[in-house]
């Protein structure tokens, strides 16, 4: 009975339907990969921003300390 139902269903499916379904699945996977990539890119960009900010802060502190020591002398 189940086999008969499947056969009847398959008989109604045209090659265009199969191609459309494959296209839909591929688009789904493509956008899923976009989503995951973007999630990672956001995290990486934030980490890079933090690293560059820390470098800038340390550089500015070193410069100010050097300037203050020079003024003391």
């Amino acid at each position, binding site marked *: 009975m189940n086999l008969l139902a499947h056969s009847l269903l398959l008989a109604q499916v045209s090659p265009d339907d199969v191609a459309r379904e494959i296209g*839909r*699945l591929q*688009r*789904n*996977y493509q*956008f*899923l990969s*976009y*989503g*995951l990539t*973007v*999630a990672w890119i*956001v*995290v990486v960009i*934030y*980490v890079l921003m*933090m690293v560059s*900010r*820390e470098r800038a*802060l*340390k550089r*500015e*502190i070193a410069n*100010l*300390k050097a*300037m*203050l020591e020079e*003024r003391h002398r």
Partner: protein
Amino acid sequence: MRNYILYALGAGAMFILARDINLIAGFPQEASQGAIFKIIFFHVPMAITAMLCSFVALCASIAFLATKNFKYDAIAVAVTEVGLAFLAGNLITGSIWARIIWGVWWAWDVRLTSALVCWLLYAGYLMLRRAIEEPTQRATFAAAFSIFAFIDVPIVYLSIRLFRTQHPGPVFFSSNGSFPPDWSAAIFGPLGTMMAMMMLATIFTCVRLTQENFQRELDSLRRMAHAM
């Protein structure tokens, strides 16, 4: 010692995320939405992490106004910035999901709009901090603004419960939603994506707190330089 703990947390988070991605890839596709539904494993934990960051920022801001201790101000700014990054990830992944399911990148419904307003409010908080030079005034105004900004967080949370929205209704923490237990465990389990996001947020917050200490040192050095 503190750095070693942070490195261990980072390695743990990376391990959990790698394990979860492998696990999620093996799950079957959702019946009506297909593969794109799996974006939920990152979209929801990012939103919850951002909301928890907002709550911590609220508590720290109230603590600062009560005690005038700058330690709380540093915590507030650190968690706000981290929460903003996670909320940005949540909004972008949601937008990509919407493009497939709704056919549009964005819909001006209550959930999406209130989340965007939340992001703008916390971005405004960071801009406000940059605009005020004097540290005590900056911390006081920022704490008051942070308390005001938090008003939007319950609106974001309740929007899908109180209004009819394009965004689907609650799946988690609700009797209406149904989610397979192994899928729920991939998000909320002890080795789920939620745990990994929380660990990442903790690491970022600790790094930002260190930077706030550098910023305070820089402020005091500047004051000394001006005084000389």
